[in-house]
């Protein structure tokens, strides 16, 4: 292809951000997320080792499961001993805990927060509601399957799951990370259009940029 054509395609690849008011479109980045391959196998292994031991949770209680995070972090269960720490901003966190059911209102924030996390990033879905809607399976206002909207790495079942099971979930996540199997970021980038379509289908008043950098 000619250079000119590439440029045109790149331009077409840009996101439209149609949900935003005209005036604000310039103020948001319009790049698509893209797949990122590891540079070097051994380096990646070393990094995965470290990543598994330094899990920074995004402190955003999306559902009722968030109540379980308090005992998890405090003296009784002390998750910090595993290197699991809370972070107040998605920019710095790498683990997103979906704390139970996600209402239509919450899903929008979940998507935005997830997209603002810097990869590699992992998602732990907590409780039955995230798997199939749980007790809210027929609610008009909750979504049933969270992995239609963002890629999930680990499900922790139960209603509610106890902190112990959460720790077990973390351990599972760690194993997956160390094995290099947690690639939610690339999965999301690869299937971006599908995820976006799902999200836009359920979120009617889409007033965010198409990808929240």
């Amino acid at each position: 292809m000619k250079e000119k054509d590439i440029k045109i395609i790149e331009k077409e690849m840009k996101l439209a951000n149609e949900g935003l008011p005209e005036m604000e479109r310039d103020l948001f980045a319009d790049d698509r997320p893209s797949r990122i391959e590891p540079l070097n196998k051994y380096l990646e292994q070393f990094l995965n080792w470290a990543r598994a031991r330094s899990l920074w949770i995004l402190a955003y209680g999306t559902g009722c499961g968030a109540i379980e995070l308090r005992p998890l972090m405090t003296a009784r269960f002390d998750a910090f001993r595993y290197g699991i720490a809370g972070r107040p901003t998605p920019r710095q966190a790498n683990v997103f805990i979906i704390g139970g059911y996600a209402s239509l209102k919450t899903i929008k924030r979940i998507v935005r927060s997830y997209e603002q996390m810097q990869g590699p990033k992992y998602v732990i879905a907590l409780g039955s509601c995230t798997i199939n809607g749980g007790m809210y399976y027929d609610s008009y206002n909750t979504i049933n399957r969270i992995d239609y909207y963002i890629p999930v790495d680990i499900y922790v079942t139960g209603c509610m799951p106890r902190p112990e099971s959460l720790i077990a979930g973390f351990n599972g996540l760690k194993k997956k990370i160390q094995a290099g199997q947690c690639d939610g970021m690339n999965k999301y980038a690869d299937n971006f259009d599908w995820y976006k379509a799902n999200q836009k289908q359920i979120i009617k008043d889409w007033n965010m940029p198409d990808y929240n950098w």
Partner: protein
Amino acid sequence: MDIFIKIIYAAISILVATLYGLILIGIVHKIYARVHRRIGPPVWQPILDIIQTHGRKVATSHGIMFFLGPVFRMAGGMGTYLFMPVIFGSVVFSNYSMAGDLLLVMYFIFFGQLGMALGAGEGGHPYSPLGIARGLSQMSTFELPFSLAVISIAIQYQTLNITTIVAAQQGGMLNWTLFTNPLAVIAAMISLLGMNMHSPFSLVLAPQEIPIGPPIEMNGSFLGILQTNRALFASAKLVLFMNLFFGGATNLPIMMLKTFSIYMFSVFIGAAFPRFRPEQSFRFFLRIPTLIGILSVIVIAYL
């Protein structure tokens, strides 16, 4: 040739100080955990965290100043460290202390802070300037007792040269400024609380008000550099205090022991007290510590 050796020495010095600083932070986590009756993370957890942050595959940058902010910060930390002698009599750890005196060190502290403030400012997040505003304000207030203490010891030792000040404190514990000029040390130690930004003076990070403040937009390697600097800078400040008030150090273990003890002072106070509101903090520094500082100057200069 000399200059290259100097650079290598400086690199070694910085590496040691950084590692030491990271371990120090790990120990602090451990201590906090023990105070909370937890087990706490391993002491090397900060190192893991730094590797993890540097291992991020993507990063978002808000612009050139955002990019350079952490660099400024790191340069400030490194410079502050490099401009003072760490271990009295050691060639490796004397750093570039010949470039200037105490005033240089005191002002180079600002270099990183200013750069970071600019970088965070370009991030565009409102919490950044809020945190910076608090930080700068608080800094201005704790600088007052600290500068009084510095002036006091400058009068005491008739010099502003750190190496000379350390040299004057050699030859027994009672020669330390801590004992020869206790008022200045009290003033300086209180301002150290503010400098270290542990509660009750943790206005900048203030997790419940402006979650982590200035670096809120920092991510990936930016954050990694900031974390590294935090360790280096912490040890630099401790070394400064050690040199000025606690007789300096003649070898590495003593330096570690002394700096650790100084650090524990602020850590324990931080573990025990809740956070001040900004104006409470400012007023605090402008009252008792300032008075003590003035007293120390008066005692040394005129009595």
